[in-house]
């Protein structure tokens, strides 16, 4: 089975984020990019399927700062190929990036059709679309998202997708298909830095020029602000003991302790 895992970089939201001078985008000086967490799960799910059924995994990404490290890490984890789409303007919206991928991927030698294309079902910067769904539309493939389990054999995949309240739905999906991964069946594997370094020495990232203009985004941010921190909360301070005592008081006031 041949599987594509699509990876994209997003701002690390555990870091401090600031609004840039234009008042409508993030200040790049403050930005630390990480792989979208759901995409890491997509890659893991691809690798788990390969471990089980054989075949190949190709990690695909649009060029971005730190992307080489991410792609070498994917190779070190067990991906067979890494493809980087270059000559793309920075800061594309989710929708523009996904439709660009849908145009470019079919032109990459020996890549498509793959049996499955896996990508995260969501990212925190998805203002104007969802990568996996837009990609599915562009590639004219079926789509199912919020996926937390995949097995495949022959021409159909058996996929579990999450509904509210812990209910899951089981689906049969004709392959090739695009799946939006919510969580892989096991937590993403860890790979030691030494193995990533080894991958950097022994393997290569295939670079493919996009050769096409991205479409304009139909949704424009006109202003961005930081929500007032603790907009509502009464902030408590003190030593850990003092803070714990305050929590104890709040519990006592309510008859819970």
């Amino acid at each position: 089975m041949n599987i594509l895992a699509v990876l994209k970089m997003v701002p690390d939201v555990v870091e401090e984020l600031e609004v840039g001078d234009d008042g409508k985008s993030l200040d790049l000086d403050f930005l630390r990019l990480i792989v979208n967490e759901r995409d890491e799960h997509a890659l893991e799910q691809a690798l788990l399927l390969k471990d089980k059924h054989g075949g190949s995994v190709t990690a695909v990404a649009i060029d971005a700062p730190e992307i080489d490290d991410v792609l070498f890490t994917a190779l070190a984890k067990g991906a067979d190929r890494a493809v980087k789409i270059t000559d793309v303007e920075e800061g594309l919206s989710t929708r523009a990036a996904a439709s660009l991928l849908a145009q470019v991927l079919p032109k990459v030698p020996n890549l498509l059709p793959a049996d499955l294309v896996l990508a995260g079902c969501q990212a925190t910067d998805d203002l104007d679309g969802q990568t996996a769904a837009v990609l599915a539309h562009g590639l004219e493939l079926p789509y199912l998202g919020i996926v937390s389990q995949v097995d495949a054999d022959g021409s159909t995949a058996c996929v579990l997708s999450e509904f509210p309240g812990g209910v899951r739905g089981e689906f049969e999906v004709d392959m090739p298909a695009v799946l939006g991964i919510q969580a892989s069946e096991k937590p993403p594997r860890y790979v030691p830095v030494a193995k990533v370094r080894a991958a950097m020495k022994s393997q290569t990232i295939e670079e493919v020029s996009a050769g096409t203009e991205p479409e304009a985004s139909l949704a424009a941010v006109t202003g961005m602000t930081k929500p007032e921190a603790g907009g509502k909360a009464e902030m408590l301070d003190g030593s850990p003991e003092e803070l714990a005592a305050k929590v104890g008081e709040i519990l006592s006031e309510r008859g819970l302790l």
Partner: protein
Amino acid sequence: MPGNVWVMAEQWRGELSEITYELLALGRELADGLGVQLEAVLLGHDARGLAATLGAADGILYADDPAFTEPTAAARSQTLASLAEERRPHCLLLGLTNLTADLAGILPAQLGAPFVNYCRDVRVADGKLEARCILYGGKMDAAVEAAAEPVLLGVLPGVRPADQGLKSGAPQVEDVTASVPDAPRVRFTKYLEPEAGDVDITQQEVLVAVGRGIANEDNVELAEEIATALGGAVCGSRPVIDQGWLPLSRQVGKSGATVKPKFYLAAGISGAPEHTEGMKGSDVIIAINTDPDAPIFGVAHYGMVADCLEILPALVETVAAKKG
């Protein structure tokens, strides 16, 4: 003259879901602000009766097809796309739930229409829609305008109180055509009910919730100790469940449970909208987070910028001392 405001009437296992009414409340404001009609789009099979509580709308567009009994997006997307092409609504409100997520992903691409995701509010200003969106897991607030119509708006749960949009008095129901794929490539087979956990977190008065900030499985025990002493239970955010530190039955949020305890302690949880929609109705919320900008402080009643690995052990002591 702009087109009408449409609301997708979402259903879950044969009943309208709460977000439908929240969207109707919002849609009513938008339609009045634009001076157009509010229409609910109801897609179902033998489901005309559901129109009875959609009285907040001026009219209902009802399409009937057995395909709509399956929780899949393709038939809904195709039907909505052809309806929207024919009738040109000004906007369509879609709930950002696990039921509508796939539709919200596919339909904008299929229609070639703008999509505005993560809307926490939408207003009419100078005859135009302005959306307020939550980006970066709640760390930024963006004002967003769309460049074309119809605009598809992905609206977060809780945008308006559901009871504001819940009105009986069935408006006029217009039958419209369903257009569904002949051979669907995604086929629903069955629902898998959640395994009953050892405790039902929706029934607890006290919940101690842990997030990724708890760092490892061993530390979850600190929370367990406090919860047990208080006669409550431990629950968690998604990453804690994904790591296998707590079972799925303890997950709070969009894909997990919605809880409303008397006391909710959030330790090392950032406060992403997918988590907060499941707990923001709690009576008292206390958040512990090392990041002063963590969005959880926007829903908590009390907050502390502190290391939960220091606070929780201290709290174990406090609770033990108070119980004497």
